[in-house]
């Protein structure tokens, strides 16, 4: 789950990392009022995506009137795919130096990785590529936390600010990462002010979705995924569903098999209409899953690809067959069923729908693509 800047910064403050004074505004009036309280300010679009500055979503304002004018322009703007509905109005900070710091889950070392560069800002990826030595990469044993002495030794000898102050800020950043089940806690830029303070000007926080149940309060301030109406319905049912542009509906179990079904549809010249997975514990939900696929009017044929390991294909097929008989959709349905419970499942499809499942997935996909094409003509 992504957290916008205004929702992430309180987590830094909670561990003692300073952030600029500021407040949220949803209207130009509010922006003007906040600006009149804090003086010269920065107007920052709150969207869960990068490159806000380059898109014109971050502007300096010397006066409240200027803050208002910026707010009028930025509110309602689209950045990435996100409409700007909130602004963070923050005091301007006298920057002497921009640095970069982040902690993330690193699959290579299978532990937390702390990244730090005394050079930071928008071009950090370029800096990391051109001057790999400028970027410190430090692996952490999550059982022990940040080893400050070892990390101090890994820092460059020349630093723009007091060494102890940097160590302190980074060890606090690690605490914020650890306390909140972060996949990523990133500060870019982490600035040194002209009077020598260290302040986080921005913060990006991504929480591990699997850990949300133990951070229920905090998760309320996260940004929910942008979902279509059908996707939202699916989510409420505990199903993973993504709407796509094609006309071959896909219903499969397990993320890997669902992706593969989509790949195969495209490989044989069709376009998938959706990603819909009913794996894991949700395999008993074939009926609501089918209703979701069919609610999309673009679907011209339905490919059902079940391969049971943990999930039982007879349970899934029972749901689909029953729903199909109730809903009586006017499109062809193509089955390929293998694995746990396949004999019962195949017999059920033959008997109750009069349809012969394909033995090979590739043949089933070819048939589904051809059926959708035939229906479209």
């Amino acid at each position, binding site marked *: 789950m992504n957290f916008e800047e205004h929702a992430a910064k309180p987590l830094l403050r909670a561990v003692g990392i300073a952030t600029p004074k500021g407040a949220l505004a949803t209207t130009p009036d509010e922006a003007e009022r906040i600006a009149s309280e804090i003086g010269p300010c920065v107007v920052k679009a709150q969207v869960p995506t990068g490159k806000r500055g380059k898109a014109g979503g971050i502007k300096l304002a010397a006066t409240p009137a200027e803050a208002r004018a910026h707010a009028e322009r930025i509110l309602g703007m689209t950045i990435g795919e996100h409409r700007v509905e909130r602004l963070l109005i923050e005091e301007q900070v006298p920057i002497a130096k921009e640095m970069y710091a982040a902690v993330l*889950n690193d699959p290579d070392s299978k532990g937390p990785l702390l990244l730090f560069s005394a050079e930071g800002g928008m071009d950090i990826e370029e800096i990391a590529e051109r001057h790999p030595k400028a970027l410190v990469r430090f692996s952490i044993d999550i059982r022990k936390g940040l080893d400050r002495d070892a990390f101090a030794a890994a820092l460059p000898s020349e630093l723009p600010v007091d060494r102890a102050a940097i160590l302190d800020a980074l060890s606090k950043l690690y605490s914020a990462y650890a306390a909140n089940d972060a*996949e*990523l806690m*990133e500060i870019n830029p982490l600035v040194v002010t002209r009077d020598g303070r260290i302040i986080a000007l921005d913060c990006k926080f991504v929480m591990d*979705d699997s850990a949300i149940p133990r951070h229920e309060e905090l998760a309320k301030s996260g940004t929910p995924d942008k979902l279509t109406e059908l996707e939202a319905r699916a989510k409420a049912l505990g199903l993973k569903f993504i709407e796509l542009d094609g006309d071959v509906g896909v219903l499969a179990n*397990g993320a*890997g098999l669902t992706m593969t079904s989509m790949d*195969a549809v495209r490989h044989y010249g069709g376009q998938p209409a959706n990603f819909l997975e009913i*794996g894991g514990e949700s395999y008993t939900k074939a009926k609501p899953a089918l209703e979701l696929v069919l609610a999309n009017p673009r679907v011209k044929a339905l490919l059902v690809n079940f391969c049971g390991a943990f999930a039982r294909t007879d349970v899934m097929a029972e749901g689909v067959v029953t729903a199909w008989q109730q809903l009586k959709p006017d499109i062809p349905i193509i089955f390929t069923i293998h694995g746990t419970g396949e004999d019962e499942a195949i017999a059920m499809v033959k008997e109750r729908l009069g349809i012969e499942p394909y033995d090979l997935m590739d043949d089933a996909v070819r048939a589904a693509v051809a059926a959708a094409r035939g229906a479209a003509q």
Partner: protein
Amino acid sequence: MIVRGNESVLVMGITGKQGTFWAEKMRGYGTRIIGGTNPKRAGEKHLDLPVWASARDAAKETQVDCAVMFIPPFGVKAAALDAIEAGIRKIVCLTEHVPVHDTMYFLAAARERGAQVIGPNTAGLVTTGESFVGFMPAFNERVFKPGEVGVISRSGSLGTLLCLNLVQAGLGISSFVGIGGDPIIGTTTRDALECLDRDPHTKAIALVGEIGGAMEEQAAEYARTMSKPVAAFIAGAASPPGKKMGHAGAIVMGNRGSYAAKKAALEAAGVIVCATPNGVPEALKARLAPA
């Protein structure tokens, strides 16, 4: 990470619905199930097998070679640490949605104690005709027939499909290694590839990958050194890329992770990359045919 028929297996969470169902399936297949755990039912019998409070208690009384966990996500860390402390060398974690910080914690502990963790979020391990741990349909002879192809898969359902395709094509399976679909897992594609390369019963390897992460690229580095044929299918060519992880994600991942990057890395290492799973058996058959 190949499971052998003589290995003793402890089922953690044996009294639950899934633990019970799969413990019976495993035992029926020939897996040496020696009992299970449930802290509330220690001392009882379940499926006519002893129940201990913990893996440590089990290990005090008997030799435990492998632990398989049917444990809910928020209980996995404690259960895994229990198994590691008990000195169990092979730990199979089936659970999906384990918080990644928990996973990193017990993986660090496992590394220190020399325990091999498979998963989380794996469907398990199968050695055809010998033993299986987890929830793969090992007992289904259309999916698992003895043979000489080793299969590595992140996904259980897709791994099942691939095994089935191999059997349909007249090949058989030596061992299946389900490594798990989570972003951070104990046994990587490369680890599994090295293991099957050393396995005398495996003559060729089918590798099922997915977009995201860098495990296929890392496996490709090892594949360069192999003489056994390897064919791969990478799922996700038609899927939108996953979420971005800030600048940090871009810095750490570099240009790894996409379908194109994985395909290029594997092909450069001599691996045959197939457009659908069904291509894999044909590719391997051609390479396995006597010259």
